[in-house]
């Protein structure tokens, strides 16, 4: 298939254009074929006949793997050419800028050898022995096979080199001392490849590889320790990252995704919405836009199989039953603002008006009395691109006051979840700056 980026940049209208007219969508279905997975360690070979016409890509296809690893999300500044870096990642200790990973020799990764590349992905040590900051999820990518790592490299190296010097990181001492990361790596990077569990099905193992290695889901969904490493015992138990709550996606029925049907999970991962679960937003919308929507039905099913088996945890706001309702009299200001600004898409009862993505019934975010993600969406908006449409919500902070937005958030949460929502104007004020 033609090595041309048309999926990465959520701000790049080119993508929109192509999917607006569906050629990319059709192109996928033309590539039905049979392929195999190879898991390096034990020569675990899984011949797999792909029945669905939407299963398109060979697992060793560099472009497919690059999407599955969602490199574009961090390595593209919104509005810029994919992989040219420069996206600001705000950390408690300063701001770092994702590097340009096009094969430009001056400003990109053009000088990387294969070994350096693999070392960067697996050990966090890049070209000329430079330590990478762990904003790069090498503690997940370390599970990736050398073969897959190099397939990604060869895909990226097939792209046009773009000269783009990204801004220098602004980290405070001692975090600006890259050598100190040696210690961090000793504790926080497992530094080994994915080992299939022979007691589990091939599907489960494929899902585990996608979730743990390529998809690096834990980077958002797993809580962090005091060193900002991932807490291994709390895998996928939910965490707050960059102002957003990445929900508990363990198999717990109340707090995780245990209450979802397989079909709903698959639909959500592929399209960003599912009946009675609301739309994906923020970083999850980005993950779907840039990565998950490209995965084959078999891979999505494998992810679901694996997630079903993640040990349950009870952290985070309990998931919401779509039927939950409250009898409380809502705050008139909340009703007022909701009818002004929100009901055009969501309807006064939040059930959604002209698009499935606008239905907030059962949305985990609407069941969070702290309103963490709702605040982020109100303050910064959200955008999701599926294979056939662009779904968006604008920010509303430029013309509504903190008090108004807090009231609207509380109204929605209280009305749809029956929970006592306590978003304050100060919370909105804080979300504006996050």
């Amino acid at each position: 298939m033609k090595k041309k980026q048309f999926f990465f940049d959520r701000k790049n209208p080119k993508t929109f254009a192509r999917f607006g007219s569906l050629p990319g969508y059709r192109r996928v279905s033309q590539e039905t074929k049979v392929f195999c997975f190879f898991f390096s360690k034990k020569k675990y070979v899984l011949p797999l006949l792909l029945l669905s016409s939407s299963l398109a890509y060979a697992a060793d296809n560099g472009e497919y793997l690059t999407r599955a690893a969602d490199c574009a999300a961090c390595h593209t500044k919104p509005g810029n050419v994919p992989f040219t870096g420069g996206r600001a990642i705000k950390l408690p200790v300063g701001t770092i800028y994702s590097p340009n990973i096009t094969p430009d020799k001056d400003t990109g990764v053009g000088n990387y050898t294969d070994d350096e590349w693999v070392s960067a992905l697996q050990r966090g040590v890049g070209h000329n022995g430079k330590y990478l900051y762990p904003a790069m999820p090498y503690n997940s990518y370390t599970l990736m096979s050398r073969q897959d790592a190099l397939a990604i490299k060869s895909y990226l190296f097939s792209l046009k080199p773009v000269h783009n010097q990204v801004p220098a990181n602004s980290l405070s001492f001692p975090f600006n001392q890259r050598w100190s990361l040696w210690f961090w790596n000793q504790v926080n990077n497992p530094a080994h490849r994915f080992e299939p569990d022979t007691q589990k099905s091939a599907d489960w193992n494929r899902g585990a590889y996608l979730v743990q290695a390529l998809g690096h889901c834990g980077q958002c969904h797993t809580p962090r320790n005091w060193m900002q490493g991932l807490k291994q015992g709390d895998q996928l138990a939910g965490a707050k990252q960059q102002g957003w709550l990445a929900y508990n996606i363990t198999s717990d029925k109340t707090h995780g995704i245990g209450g979802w049907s397989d079909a709903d999970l698959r639909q959500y991962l592929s399209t960003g919405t599912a009946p009675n679960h609301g739309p994906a937003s923020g970083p999850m919308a980005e993950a779907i836009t840039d990565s998950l929507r490209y995965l084959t039905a078999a891979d999505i099913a494998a992810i679901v199989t694996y997630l079903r088996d993640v040990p349950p945890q009870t952290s985070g706001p309990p998931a919401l039953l779509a039927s939950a309702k409250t009898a409380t009299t809502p705050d008139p200001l909340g009703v007022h603002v909701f009818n002004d600004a929100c009901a055009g898409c969501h309807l006064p009862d939040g059930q959604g008006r002209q698009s499935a993505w606008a239905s907030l019934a059962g949305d985990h975010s609407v069941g969070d009395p702290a309103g963490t993600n709702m605040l982020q969406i109100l303050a910064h908006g959200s955008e999701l691109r599926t294979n056939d449409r662009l779904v968006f919500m604008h920010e509303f902070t430029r013309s509504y006051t903190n008090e108004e937005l807090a009231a609207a958030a509380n109204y929605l949460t209280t009305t749809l979840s029956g929970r006592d929502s306590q978003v304050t104007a100060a919370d909105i004020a804080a979300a504006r700056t996050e």
Partner: protein
Amino acid sequence: MTYMAPTRRNFLKVGAALGGGLIVGLRMPGNARAEAAEANAPFAPNAFIRITPDGKITFIMSHTEVGQGIYTSASMLLAEELEVGLDQIEVEPAPPNVALYIDPNLGEQATGGSTSTIAGWGPLRIAGATARTMLVQAAAQKWRVDPATCVAARGVVRRGANGGGLTYGQLATAAAALPVPKDVALKPPSAFTLIGTPQKRLDTPGKVNGSLQFGMDVQIPGMKIGTVAACPVRGGTLRQIDEEAARAVPGVIDVVKLDDAVAVIGDHYWAAITGLRAAAAQWHDGPHGGVSTAGIIDALKQASDSDGFTALKRGDPHAAIAGAAKSLEAVYELPFLSHAPMEPINTTLHVRPDGADLWVGTQVPPRAQAAVAKNTGLKPEQVTVHNQYMGGAFGRRLDVDSIEQAARIAKNLSYPVKLIWSREEDITQDLLRPYYYDRVAAGLDADGKIVGWTHRTTCSWVMARWAPPGMKEGGKLDPDTVEGAMETPYDFPAQLNQTVRSEPDGVITAWWRGVGPTHNIFVVEGFVDELAAEAGIDPVDFRRRLAARNPRALGVLNLAAEKSGWGRKLPKGTGRGVSLQFAFNSYVATVLEVSVSDRGEVALHQAHVAADVGPVVNPDTLRAQLQGGLIFGLSMAMFNEITHANGRVLQSNFHDYRVLRMNEAPDVTVHIVDNPTAPIGGVGEAGTASASAALANAIFAASGRRLRRIPFATGQLAETGRS
């Protein structure tokens, strides 16, 4: 502004219509611009009234319909004297012809400044009366009777009240051959059967069933649809686009690159906008890439330290204030504003080697014609303007920048093209109402009477760009900047009005509904309210004393106070604010009742507006204009502002350029003072001009908080604010 009074000395022009029939028009002598245009123009076979032998009566509308109801009001003036029913006529928009259709108050064929009814009041009735007189004479000649024995009614001339009749159509050709009567008698107000009665608007049915065509709805055979992105920074240029990607979008037909913009044309808007996004235009920002609102305000503040031009000085206001028992000074600020009419900017244009057709809703047809001519190399007379109903204008369609852009695009295309701006383009590329930075000061004597008043405004001068001939004092004064500030309803024994010109970097400023008065009445009436509070006098009583020698001002003030129950006790957190104005030749007083919650939430309860506009043409339209105009102004005062960063407008659509909605609008009751013998006033903008001060004063009454910076309801009153 001095409004031209109706006069019999206006020059009437009557002639035969093509194919027979009668046409009646008239010109304003003494207007150099009109006379110059007349000297060069061939006799135009249409004017205000066209009656054809088949009996069809057409009124030609010199002013454009932006929603203010002028097509109906103007038709009432014509029909009243012509003696036809509104159900018997059709209206059509006038073509560009400055000689025939000039608005004497604006100095050109334009619709704005609430002048349409003022302009039409005399001439249209004279035109109707002249036509009727000639039709009656034609009938009398045919019957060989004294015209005085003939009666005209509902388009028929009869011999006596019950005699046989001839229709206007049957008489039109004969009438056109008669000499034009020098003086025609106009009906006294007591004889009016249409004027002063509530009449149904002519354009309502088509607007209720979706059949009426706005500019946006124009469909021409072979027409394609395009959309445009211009450089988001004024003065910047197009750097690059991905033309291949744009053309790859199904339905995209053409991509047109201009220096400062790119247009994508397709089979439909969705193809065009999808193609435009795919084009991913990138820009050179040019010299204004660093413009920010804070920088512009700083520049205005600095400029406000100079005296500027003194538009009025009476007495010695500085000495009066210095010697006053109490004195007060304040700064009032009004933000940049977008117009945001419901109908986004659109232009349909077919440019051919030998001519062009333009379908657009414009407040200035001759400028629109010239804009196409200038950008295509055609002569103006080769450009036919088909003016359209407008989905709001509010001053936006007094400019033709979008028509110039359309001409630059369409001249590259062989087919008719409708160019539609997205709402985002409509707001980010709007020409903005100026930012005003006003410094006011006044002194009170021991009795609480104002003894000295100074008001200095610092702003962009729209007139200097839009119509340099409209500048006063040899080009040293933009009169709009002090309109509503110089002529208040009050007696200030010593008064100083100054205006400082300070043009903002990278922003083009434009007219906005209510023009000068919308700006100045906020400042004057807000500050008068502050002085009332300082003097410890009730705001209505304070104004009564100030306007003691102005009976029309007192009339509306007392009426609004009475109807609103001024003085009656209100619950805590609720308050009434008053605003009194003389603008557009009309007197208006507004009392607004609001409440302010602990969270800074402002709720608009109800408003009572009293108006003395002199003679009333269509009272229902007068009420509608004051209701709607007030709500438009409240929307602005509550929410509206355009801000800039990196040379770019930060607002783009109704989610961040908020407007008042159903659940936020107050009930508005209009009370009309009957005053048929006074000079006629305009009303399209009067409500808007009264809104901000009434709201600021009501918020003060409700909360004790004095707001001097618009918009009010986006954080100023809240605990944590908006930003």
